[in-house]
Structures are given as C-alpha cells and as structure tokens.
C-alpha cells in the first residue's frame, strides 16, 4: 500500500513537472492559444 502510494505520487509529480516545462520552458510555436485556454492566467 505504502509503495503504491509512492508510485502514484511519483507519477503525478512527473506529470506536473512535464506540464510546467512544456508550458513555460519549451512552449510550442504559435500554439495560437486554442481551445478556450488563452493562457490567460
């Protein structure tokens, strides 16, 4: 159980970091801010 929790946390953290890196460190070119998320915030 404890191990499983560690694995889930690891995956979530990885997902969060990848998301932030994609958003700020390597933003896709001309993503045009589609799909309702204008990167407003």
């Amino acid at each position: 159980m404890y191990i499983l929790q560690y694995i889930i946390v690891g995956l979530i953290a990885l997902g969060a970091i990848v998301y932030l890196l994609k958003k700020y460190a390597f933003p896709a070119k001309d993503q045009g801010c589609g799909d309702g998320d204008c990167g407003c915030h």
Partner: protein
Amino acid sequence: MGKSINVALIGNPNTGKTSLFNRLTGLNQKVGNYPGITVEKKEGICKLSPRLKAHILDLPGTYSLNTSSLDESVVVETLLNRNSKDFPDVAVVISDVENLKRNLLLFTQIKDLEIPSILVINMADRMQRKAITLDIDLLEEELNTRVVLVSARKNQGIDQLKKAIIEYKSLNTKPCVNASSIDPEYFDNLKKAYPKQSIYKLWLVITQDVNFGKIDRNRDLENLKQASFEVKSENDLKKLQHQETVVRYQFINGLLKKALNVDQSQAKDLRSRLDRILLHKVWGYLIFFAILLLIFQAIYDWSSYPMDWIDSAFAKASSWAQTTLPAGPFTDLLAEGIIPGLGGIVIFIPQIAILFLFIAILEESGYMSRVVFLMDHIMKKFGLSGKSVVPLVSGTACAIPAVMATRNIEDWKERLVTILVVPFTTCSARLPVYLIIIGLVIPEGSVLGGFLSYQALTLMGLYLLGFGTAIFSAWVLNRVLPIKRKAFFVMEMPAYKVPMGKNVLITVVEKTKSFVLGAGKIIMAISIVLWLLASHGIGEKFTNADELVRAEYAGQSLSEDELNDKIASQKLEYSFIGYIGKGIEPAVRPLGYDWKIGIAIVSSFAAREVFVGTLATIYSVGSDEEETIKNRMRAEVNPILGGPLFNFASGISLLLFYAFAMQCMSTLAIVKRETNSWKWPAIQFTAMTVIAYFAALAAYQLLS
C-alpha cells in the same frame, strides 16, 4: 451521419451577429483561435434538417472588406481562400434594420466575390415601433439575393433563415454593383492578365497591401505582383478605394430610396433621451463613476458568502482526507498539495463571474461606447485614445484579451502606449492576492452609514491606483516614444439595448471556464511541485528533525501539540523549498516579507494567482490541523520582529508589489505577438518590476 455545409456569419459590429450565432448554435459552440494569430474564432453546429448540418463560423465584425486590422483581415482571408476547410458554402450577411444603408456596403462587397449570400435583416421586431417599411421583393431583385427578416432577440424568423440556408444552391451569385466602373481601363487589364480569377478578388488582394501589409494569400495570386501590367501607387489605390465606396453608396442610397421608408415623425426615440443624460457634461461622468463603484462593491460584498463557504469546505475536505485515507505520501499530497491548491482556484470563481457579468452587460447594452465617447478628450491628453478605455476596463478581467482589444485603435502610437500600460490595470489574477491581504490587514468597519466598508474602499483604491498608474505611464510614454501620432478616431455609437440574458450568460460561463481550466492547470501543477519541495529535504536537520527538536526542548514542558508544531516548522525550514526561500530572503526582507512569502512571490512570476495557492500549500505542509488559509496566514509570526507577519506595513507593501509588478508570462507573450518584437515586452517587464520593488520598499520602510 448527414451532410454538413459551411456557413459563415458576416456583418458589421452591433448588428446582433453574436445573438444570431447563439440562437443558431445554442451552447453547441466552441471558442478558440485562428491558427497562429490571436483572433477569436467562434464555431458552432446547427442542425438544419434531419439530414443536413451546418458548421457555422462566426467571423469578426467588420464594416467592409477594406481591412485595417487583424480581425478584419481574418474575414477577407476566409472569403478569399477557396481551399481552406472554413471556406463558406454560403455567406449569411447580417444587417440591422435601422442601419441598413451602412450594412449593405459590406453586403455588396461580398456579393462581388460571387459567394452564395443571404441577406439577414435583424431586429425586424423594431420595424413597427420605428415606423419602418421595407420592400423585400425589390431588395431581393436589385441585390440578386434572398432576404430574410429575423429577430434574434425575439427568436423570430430563425426557421425561415434555416430554410434559406438549406436552399443555398439556388442562390444567385451575380454581383449587384459594378465596382470596375471606377477605372474601367485598369480593371480590363487586370481581367486580361488573370482571366480565370474573379475580378473583385484580385482587387482585394491588390488593395490589402495598401491598408494592412502582409497577409497570406493563395499562391496563384501571389504571382500578381510580378505580373507585367501597370502598377498603381499606394495613393492612387487609396483614391480608387474611396471612389469604390462612393459608387457603392450611390447604388445603396438609390436602392433604399425606393425600398425603405422611415416615418421620421415617429423617430423620436430612447437613444437621444438616454444620450442627453448619459453623455451629460456632469451627470455623464457621475453616472460612470457610480457604476464603477457599484461593480467594486458587488465584487467584494456579494461574493463573500460563497467564498467563505468554499474556503471552509476545502479545509474540511482536506482534514477528512488526512484522517480517513490510509497514511502515506499520496494521502499527504492529496491533503496538503492537491486539495488546498484546488481550493485556491475554486474560491475565486464567484468574483470572476460577477466581474464578467458586469463587463458583459456594459458591452451588450451599448453603454461602453458612451464611456469611450466621454473619455476620449481626456485620454487623448495622455497619449491614449477613448478606445483605450475598453482595454483598460477589460484589463480588470485579464490583460490578454485587453491587449487584443487594442486592435480597433486606429493610431499606432496610441495603440502601442495602450498595450504597454494595460498590465497596470487590476486584472482578476491580482484579485485573489488583494482580497486575502485586505482581509488580513485592513480593519473591518465602514463609512457612510455602513454602505461602504473600509475593505471595499481599499479594493477600489487599488483599482484606481492601477488605472492612475496606467494613465500616468501613458503620459510619460507619449512624450518619450519617438513615433508620430495621426490621431484618427472613428467609432460607431450603437443603439441602446436591454442586454440579452442568453448572451450575457454565455460570456460569463465561457470566461469563467477559461479561468478555471487555464489558470487551474498551472496552479495545480505548481502546487504539486511545491508540495514535493516542501515535504522533502536533505541533511540531518531535516531527516532527524524529530529527535533534534525533542532534545532541544527537553528541559521545557511543552505539550505534544506545541512540539509537533516546532518539528513541522524546522522540517519546512530545512526542506528544499526552505533553502530556496532563505536564498531569496535578503532581497525581500526590506519589503517586510519572510522567506515563505518570498517563495510565493517567485512562483507568482508564472502567474499572479499562484500566490495564495502557494502559501496554502506551504502552510499546510506539516500541520495536521487543517484550517482555512486566512486563519493560517493570520497566525504567522514575523521571525525577527515578532508580532503578526501580515501587519499593516507588510500588507500594504505586498499590495503595492502586486499592483505594479509584471508577473504574467502569458501577457508578455501576447505583447510580443501584438507588437511583433521582444523589445516592448522586455521594456515592460523591467520597468514594471523595478517600480514594484521600490514602491513596496518605500511603503514598508515608511509604515513600519
């Protein structure tokens, strides 16, 4: 699966285009952007018959196909590019029965492109009241088109419109005005050089250069410039465009003389009566000020009930997770990272919804144009345009749409100055920070017999500070920037309308959704990373915190709870985030902050609203008692001076820092895109952040 056709909605601004779009598609719509540019693209699906669906594209409002802005060039783009997947099978041109003359200008241009077109005459329900009669048969005959009378507001004529769209193949595509009569020789040569192309399409491609500059064209048209025929100077082309407009109006005026009859004696209307009051030299300004006051009071007062409720609900959820779920790192992440982070987003939904509600009502009712009118003379003095008021007001929601809203400012210098100063206005991302700090450091109590609370007044003061700084910077920029001003200004004054509930609702839902989804993802991700950094560390002081603290306080009779608090705070201090925070501390201490606030400020440079979520995460790590964010902040003690960390001096200093600092990556990106250079966002970022630091420094040093 039935067949699907493309329908483009085109029309002048203020013709009820959006209302018709909402009528046709309901909530079955998607708002996005055109690829590569930040022009809003609204699409929706409308079921015409059991077997035929329409893919409806709501094009930006435009007065003509002579483009002078990015929004307008999207319209021309869509209509010229036959290979695009958005190319319409049928164009539905919307006009307003009271402004038919002007609306028909655009219609005659679209007709010249030989696209099947339907003319919709909207607001037909007003005809009787305004004593307007129309000869529809004559209009259909002279314009070679189908005419449909509609009232989007009253939901009349929509079925007839759908039927007309279904029968689009029977529409006559012959032009109704002979535009080439303005220079027959030139157009003849054009026709000879490109026998396969529609002559008007060629004309548009040639003249776009005059007004707009580069737009992507079809490749076959690109060759035109190299072609061996007489090339006209910009000035000549501009003269021809003027003449084209004259020719079109001659046709329209002649037609409407026969087809349209308005009984002028009935025309004494609401407009002039309302305008006399709302544009009055004294009352006009007082009313505008009163409306602003109402908005701020509403944002502060109405939203406090749902906000308190949300705040405590998340605190309860967090402590429920901690006590009920099996212990382990995931439970900790949930209770200390995810739930408080989520709470930091959800709590601001009421305020954002209220703000957008007011903005939508002001726009829909036609009052916004009156504000522009009232403010133009003053704004001009500061190097802005009256039209800068709309960006400055919508900047109270978000600087990004505000920067985009500068596009209809004709003068480049006025537009650039507006873009540069807009981020000073108080956007909704600052609101979370303001609200929580004001709640902590500004005393309760009120003036004017309990109507205006000190806290609401402070909030209003911050909004005024934002506007004031924006306008003052504009004045400075106007003197410093070496750009010539032309000072063109043309604005339509739309009729007053009672805002349509459905339109307002859709705007509020759309904008709130985009805040929750857009900001939410970032806040969530940052909360998770912060939790990770705050709950892990290296070195003996972190790993052995338990024993070390117990040994240190062995002589003193501390309760178990007090000991646990000491252990938690030592762990936080020596966690990864503790080290980062201590690194920043020297820079933020003169402003009255500790290292935890320092962390929150640094993470706010991604987006401001991260501030509250960050503090919520940092503070809840290690404490088992889940409390509301506000109570937790109130209990923080200044590590050096003692006393509450969030006191009047440090609170004001924080408020000023957030009022001035440029903490929004997305805004910088959009400014780069709109000004086409990194120079402007770089200047903006540096100047604003320097101002913020010194303002906060001065405030803390003077007040403490």
